[in-house]
């Protein structure tokens, strides 16, 4: 090993604590990068492979009833490579182990062979025997949650008819990678899942002999989806088609796409934070090393090393630190990715989901690490390279201080000498003080961002449940029914109050824009299911016109006062102009809302409702559940209280873990910045502190100068961190916002208090650790040294 390299290693050992801070901060950033980019790649690859292998549908369409004879016509539509017609519906399940009825999505299997589109992946058991119509496959998450498997039986109420089903296998399908009940935020596998059954059994249950109500299509290579959709719509219109749609409206794929989008956001947002701080740490530690190495730099140059060799010598230490950060970041990133992958397996049901980061991901991570360290080192290294040998062998001039601007100078006269030292040093080196304050501010900001998620989620759930969905249970009828059916519901045990609703699948048109969505009919003075306006407060619907969710209004480019067209996708296919009379801000989904009576009139079905939201007496829950399980008229029951509980638990369990990890990262950042800042301040002030000690100042009095400077910078950083954190949190919420979720920024004072207190605590802790060096100061050695 060359002597210079040996020197380099010893220099690194001397600055090992600084180095450790750089490595840890870099590792935090790069591990998030490796995890999110790798996870994104893994999810994308796994999804693509699964879709290809199981022939995931590109287009789907629901109809009321279409005869089997049109299958050939459908198959001949342009762009259709493969097609499967099927029967689909919802059923209430009576599972003995679970008190509440569960809801199942039922999907038929072909009469013979495997589905040509949306094929299944059989996890265990066997395929149902067409000769046994009671045999069914169950989706994996559902089976696990209900504790049922091959050989078990389930009682299902299908389209008003009660049947006994026998589970013969557990399966997954590419169209149900993510399964959540319509209108729910998170999956509730014990409440909602998928059952696949023989075509004949479902045809009988839904009176669809010789007919189907759903088509799934796989497009030919290079097919134009719009043309295929148009052709299918044309063929299926007479059969009550609700309009063909692509993967962007298939729930499972849409959730996955959202997840990929969030991973991309994460891959950029957090690492940038850490890389900036790492660059800052490299800068301050290397500047310090080079300041103490002036004489050595002069010697190297006097021996004949050129500027490039000197620059390279010091740059290497930054690059070695980057290497350390990249190695640790890569290893932690892979571990982190593995943990996230197993977390995902609880939500996303692939045959196999493994975290595999591509070589390119690591190359990018390493490059980013080197770039950050290089950027941090650049200025100091350049300064080292440019030092003239004759100058470096002279002692450096004492730092030149000057009087401060008038008012500050006047203020400083009111301070004692030690406080004046602190103030003048901060003002003398504004860039360095600013960088330290910015580093601390970034740590505060990151904590605010990390902790704003629970606050946002809490607010989202509060608004969604406590304001918007106050019902305990929502019951849906198989078909819209007369208002008097409500009386039957009201008579169910434990029902305190029943509030009718109507939902209608429609196509909205405004100018050239067209969106398929749901209109929800809400009765005047609704107490349970209410429409949410700005700031999460319930609003009353105008008696006329339609109120659009903000995201829907944006898609339609419609504002209140505009006239839009509404076309029913089923039944009479009513087509009417309606005026936009309001904008709503629901947390979830992008529906439209109308006064219940107005909607029923618009659909020319006065007095017919889709179901009821119920306020319940909790004491009579069991009686109610037993009664609902026995009544065949309901297509589904959604237990909102349970959904809320499940959603909160899901969030606490899983998102909570992520937030804990990010909070730990923020602590590393705060600690790293604080320690480096304190260490460098100590190194710079060593002589002044020794002078104070020799003059007779006690350790505590001398330490005040050290801790005071760091504390002053930290206090300056606190408001800056709060402003930065607020901006970043707002921006991140904006990035995470999608058609499906609104992420409102919420001011949560406790997050701010925690972020500031925690970071300042880290800073003071680091300062006190470094302060111990004041006790060990070699007063004579320091003061007799030239500098």
């Amino acid at each position: 090993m060359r002597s210079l390299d040996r020197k380099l290693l010893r220099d690194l050992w001397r600055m090992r604590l600084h180095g450790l801070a750089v490595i840890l901060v870099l590792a935090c950033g790069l591990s998030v990068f490796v995890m999110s980019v790798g996870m994104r790649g893994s999810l994308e690859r796994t999804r693509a492979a699964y879709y290809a292998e199981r022939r995931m549908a590109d287009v789907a369409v629901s109809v009321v009833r279409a005869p089997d004879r049109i299958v050939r016509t459908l198959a001949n539509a342009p762009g259709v490579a493969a097609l499967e017609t099927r029967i689909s519906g919802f059923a209430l399940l009576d599972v003995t182990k679970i008190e509440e009825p569960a809801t199942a999505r039922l999907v038929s299997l072909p009469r013979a062979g495997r589905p040509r589109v949306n094929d299944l992946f059989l996890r265990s058991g066997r395929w149902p025997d067409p000769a046994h119509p009671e045999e069914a496959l169950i989706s994996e998450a559902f089976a696990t949650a209900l504790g049922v498997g091959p050989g078990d039986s389930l009682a299902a109420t299908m389209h008003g008819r009660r049947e006994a089903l026998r589970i013969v296998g557990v399966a997954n399908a590419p169209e149900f990678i993510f399964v959540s009940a319509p209108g729910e935020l998170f999956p509730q596998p014990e409440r909602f899942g998928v059952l696949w059954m023989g075509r004949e059994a479902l045809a009988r249950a839904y009176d669809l002999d010789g007919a189907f109500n759903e088509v799934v299509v796989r497009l030919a290579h290079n097919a134009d989806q719009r043309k295929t959709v148009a052709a299918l719509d044309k063929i299926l219109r007479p059969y009550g088609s609700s309009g063909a749609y692509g993967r962007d409206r298939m729930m499972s794929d849409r959730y996955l796409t959202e997840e990929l989008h969030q991973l991309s956001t994460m891959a950029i947002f957090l690492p940038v934070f850490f890389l900036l701080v790492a660059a800052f740490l490299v800068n301050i530690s290397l500047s310090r090393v080079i300041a103490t190495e002036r004489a050595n730099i002069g010697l190297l140059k006097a021996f004949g090393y050129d500027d490039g060799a000197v620059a390279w010598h010091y740059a290497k230490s930054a690059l070695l630190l980057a290497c350390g950060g990249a190695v640790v970041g890569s290893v932690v990133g892979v571990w982190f990715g593995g943990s996230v992958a197993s977390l995902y397996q609880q939500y996303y049901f692939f045959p196999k989901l493994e975290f595999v980061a591509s070589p390119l991901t690591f190359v990018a991570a390493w490059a980013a690490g080197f770039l950050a360290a290089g950027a941090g080192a650049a200025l100091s290294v350049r300064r080292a390279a440019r030092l003239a040998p004759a100058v470096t062998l002279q002692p450096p001039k004492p730092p030149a201080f000057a009087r401060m601007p008038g008012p500050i100078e006047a203020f400083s006269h009111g301070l004692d000498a030690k406080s004046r030292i602190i103030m003048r040093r901060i003002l003398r080196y504004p860039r360095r003080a600013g960088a330290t304050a910015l580093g601390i501010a970034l740590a505060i900001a990151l904590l605010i961002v990390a902790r704003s998620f629970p606050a946002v989620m809490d607010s989202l759930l509060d608004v969604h449940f406590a304001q918007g969905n106050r019902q305990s249970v929502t019951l849906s009828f198989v078909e819209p029914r007369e208002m008097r059916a409500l009386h039957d519901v009201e008579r169910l045990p434990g029902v305190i109050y029943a509030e009718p609703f109507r939902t209608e699948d429609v196509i909205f048109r405004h100018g050239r824009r067209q969106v398929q969505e749901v209109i929800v009919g809400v009765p005047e003075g609704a107490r349970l299911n209410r429409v949410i306006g700005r700031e999460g407060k319930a609003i009353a619907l105008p008696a006329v016109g339609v109120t659009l969710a903000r995201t829907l209004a944006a898609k339609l480019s419609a504002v209140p006062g505009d006239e839009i067209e509404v076309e029913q996708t089923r039944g009479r296919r009513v087509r009417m102009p309606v005026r936009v009379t309001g904008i709503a801000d629901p947390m979830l989904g992008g529906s439209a809302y109308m006064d219940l009576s107005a909607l029923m009139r618009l659909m020319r079905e006065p007095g017919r409702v889709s179901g009821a939201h119920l306020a319940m007496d909790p004491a009579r829950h069991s009686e109610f559940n037993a009664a609902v399980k026995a009544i065949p008229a309901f297509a589904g029951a959604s237990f909102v209280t349970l959904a809320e509980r499940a959603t909160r638990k899901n969030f606490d369990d899983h998102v909570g873990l992520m937030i804990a990890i990010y909070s730990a990262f923020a602590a590393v950042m705060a600690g790293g910045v604080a320690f480096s800042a304190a260490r460098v301040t100590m190194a710079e002030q060593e002589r002044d502190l020794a002078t104070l000690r020799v003059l007779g100042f006690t350790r505590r009095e001398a330490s005040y100068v050290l801790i005071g400077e760091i504390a002053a910078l930290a206090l300056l950083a606190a408001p800056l961190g709060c402003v930065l954190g607020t901006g970043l949190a707002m921006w991140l919420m904006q990035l995470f916002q999608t058609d499906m979720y609104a992420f409102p920024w919420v001011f949560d004072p406790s997050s701010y208090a925690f972020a500031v207190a925690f970071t300042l605590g880290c800073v003071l802790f680091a300062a006190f650790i470094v302060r111990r060096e004041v006790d060990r100061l070699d007063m004579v050695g320091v003061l007799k040294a030239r500098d």
Partner: protein
Amino acid sequence: MVSPSPPAYRVRGLTKVYGDGATAVHALRGIDLEIAEGEMLVLLGPSGSGKSTLLNIMGGLDRASGGEIAFRDASLVAMDDHGLTRFRRRNVGFIFQFYNLIPSLTARENVELVREIALDPMTAAEALDLVGLADRMDHFPAQLSGGEQQRVAVARAIAKRPAVLLCDEPTGALDLKTGVRVLEALVDISARTRATTLMVTHNVDVARLGDRVVHFLDGRISRIDVNTRRASPSELAW
């Protein structure tokens, strides 16, 4: 040797060892010395002879390994860190070769620094006037010459009216002319304040300033000379 007045310092069998075992360095190997109140004593010897080590122990910056050292009957050996800090705070003024001013404070503020901890200090103006820098009070160290900086250091050392003034090569970094100005200030002030003054030097000519000259060699006092006539700084040349 008998001091003409009661001793400020009494040193008996003082030793100082750095490190241990084979790498031990014996900086002081048994020093016996008495220093009178108000005396100006010059410690002379080559580098590594132990003179600075003795000065540091006398100033409470370092601890002896063995023996006894007392200032006005108070044992420095028995004092803990806090006691030594208090001792420095009340009794000692230090002057080093490299000035050691706080760069972020003006000359006046550097002197005022000790006023915050001293019992009966001079004003900064008074102290700076004594060293002839009344007109440079509001300058920062970087705006002063080496000699001026050292005179500010002298003013800072004497501002608390210390009983002892300890100077470690105070002119080591200065040219003759500047050094003489600094020494003039030092001698003048030590006479006025009657501070016991110890000056470490390896400059034989500077030794002529003291009442006595203690010669050090290899951690021991090799001999002590008494100057029958103290030279004035203006007579010196190096």
